[in-house]
């Protein structure tokens, strides 16, 4: 018995240390190795995804946002219905699977877990936006819809047209130079709203703030698996040009919100709530303040509420500005958050001529 065990161990050590096992990506695993690895992967994903809860994914905009990110960030390796994956990606082992039927093979919880965490030894990366579960769910929403349309043999509406070169070169999330249209695809343009509440409207936003946000994403100080790679590819001139173009655009029309909620939000925005140590929002987010602070009345209520929740949950601690707002966001109740979001989204008045604004000249932080 002892001899058998010792012999087995020696054989295993011999195989490992001699280097006979071929790790090349050009030769497939033995069928048995492959089966064991696949089983281990399935079981691991199923076990780890056990605690995940799927949020409401019915929002069309969420799936649309996922679709756009898929085209830029996932399609180069996984391919789309219209485009084969990149030949380099096809030479990977294991090859990145086509995802037409991903939602049939995996539950939404499992898809979420895989996209958020990546898979060891497969080339599948973890989501680079730390703590941005909300973004991962956009991709899950897209993938689950993809299967539905395929199953019904309906139009594959959710496949975006792949940019002409996405399939032929490994080009992850690199925007076309200075392309306002590229940004507007998700962020919306004059007249068109952003694809989803996750995404801010940039029209009429303050220039210095837009530049700051791009710098923070590029330096991994502000977390977003969608924005970080894009912002990183921009140089200073491009950041300035984009910020200028968007700040000059007209803001979208105001939202109609619940009257009571708006009134509550207005009270907090103008006077704060001293008992809960909440300062008035407008003390910083006004036209007289530093242009590094964002203009809130050009944003959707959905976006404001989501960002406040992210700050409250400590997901925006990478920058001084984020930490300042985190202190305040933690004093807000969910009702306060919804109220101020509704107020600012309803407040949008006349388009503002940002170029002639005096605060831009102070050079305040």
């Amino acid at each position, binding site marked *: 018995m002892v001899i058998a065990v010792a012999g087995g161990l020696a054989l295993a050590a011999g195989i490992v240390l001699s280097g006979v096992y071929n790790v090349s990506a050009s030769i497939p695993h033995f069928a048995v190795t492959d089966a064991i690895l696949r089983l281990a992967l399935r079981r691991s994903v199923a076990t780890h995804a056990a605690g995940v809860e799927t949020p409401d994914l019915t929002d069309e905009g969420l799936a649309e946002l996922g679709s756009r990110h898929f085209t830029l960030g996932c399609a180069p390796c996984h391919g789309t219905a219209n485009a084969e994956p990149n030949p380099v990606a096809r030479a990977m082992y294991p090859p990145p699977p086509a995802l037409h039927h991903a939602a049939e093979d995996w539950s939404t919880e499992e898809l979420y877990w895989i996209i958020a965490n990546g898979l060891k030894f497969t080339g599948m990366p973890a989501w680079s936006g730390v703590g941005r579960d909300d973004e991962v769910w956009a991709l899950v929403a897209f993938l689950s819809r993809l299967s539905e349309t395929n199953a019904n043999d309906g139009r594959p509406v959710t496949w975006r047209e792949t940019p002409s070169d996405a399939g032929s070169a490994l080009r992850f999330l690199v925007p076309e130079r200075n392309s306002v249209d590229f940004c507007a695809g998700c962020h919306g343009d004059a007249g068109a709203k952003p694809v989803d509440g996750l995404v801010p409207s940039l029209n009429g936003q303050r220039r210095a703030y837009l530049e700051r946000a791009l710098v923070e994403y590029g330096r991994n100080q502000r977390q977003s698996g969608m924005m970080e790679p894009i912002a990183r590819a921009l140089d200073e001139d491009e950041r300035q040009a984009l910020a200028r173009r968007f700040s000059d655009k007209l803001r979208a029309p105001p939202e109609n919100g619940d009257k009571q909620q708006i009134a509550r939000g207005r009270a907090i925005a103008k006077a704060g709530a001293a008992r809960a*140590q909440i*300062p008035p929002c407008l003390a910083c987010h006004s036209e007289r303040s530093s242009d590094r602070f964002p203009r809130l009345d050009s944003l959707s209520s959905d976006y404001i509420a989501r960002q406040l929740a992210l700050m409250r949950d400590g997901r925006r601690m990478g920058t001084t500005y984020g930490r300042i707002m985190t202190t305040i966001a933690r004093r807000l109740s969910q009702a306060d958050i919804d109220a101020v979001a509704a107020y600012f989204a309803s407040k949008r008045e006349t388009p503002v001529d940002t170029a002639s604004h005096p605060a831009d000249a102070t050079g305040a932080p």
Partner: protein
Amino acid sequence: MKRVLERCSGAALLLVLSACTGEQSALVSRGREASEIGSLFWIATAVSAAVTILVIIAIMFALWGPPTWKDLLSRERAVLLGGIVLPVLVLTYLLVQGSTLLQAGVARTQRSGEPSITIVGKRWWWEVIYHLPNGETVASANELRLPVGRPISVRLETADVIHSFWAPQLGGKLDMIPGRSNVITLEATEPGTSRGQCAEYCGGAHALMAFYVVALPPKDYRAWLSREAADARTPQTEQERLGERLFMTSGCGACHTVRGTEARGVIAPDLTHVGSRRSLAAATLPNDEEAFARWIAENQHIKPENLMPEFDVFTPQQLEALSAYLSSLK
């Protein structure tokens, strides 16, 4: 080994004695209430010492004394006298003495008719509100100024949790209880500065919740109070003006008030005359330009958990200008 012990005990003794002098020593009194508490303390100490000695003598006689003494001590009368009558007399005396002391202050403020001062304990600083004879109020922070020789009634309140106000050289400590207004009388007997602090654990930065008491001759006090009641000084130099602009555009006014400007926040200390105070951040830092700059950019490092976020968003030049502006608010 012995030498090490000696040194250690020497160091310990020094540490203990260092509390006997200095600006926060309870054994030095600069106020009428504190000196009365001081005499009560010494009387209580003397009586305790006398009682202790008496008990030791009685024990010694009971153990080794002549038979007549042993006999005397074992009688019921000795127990009645020494165990009941004596304690009742001594404790009653101390109780009366203490109660009189507590009441005396109230009567004195009623006679003097000086306007009162309200101090509101907040996490983790003191809001000090001076009531003027005409009914108006002047808000300041983290520093209590008193006119020498005038008993002042100080109302103690809290905006959040229980704090305790204690200025050892002026008087006893008194808790600040949510929903209540406790009144203490303070009368400074000589001009000068002493220090006090929160004496009830109130959370994170409790240890750094202190204040200064500055006693001034009545004439100086009145002059100071009228200056304190005035609006903030307008910035004079280019740097101060830049500092003011930064203050107004960076959101400082969301929490702080500088009277006479658009900064009207009500959450944090009033900064109208912050440059004239002895300290910053509730007696945590000295009051100078360097301290202002450090506080703005790294206050969580200096006073962890305090409720102000760090504004590490300024260039060194901007920080200098901002500090110059705040220092100029005399």
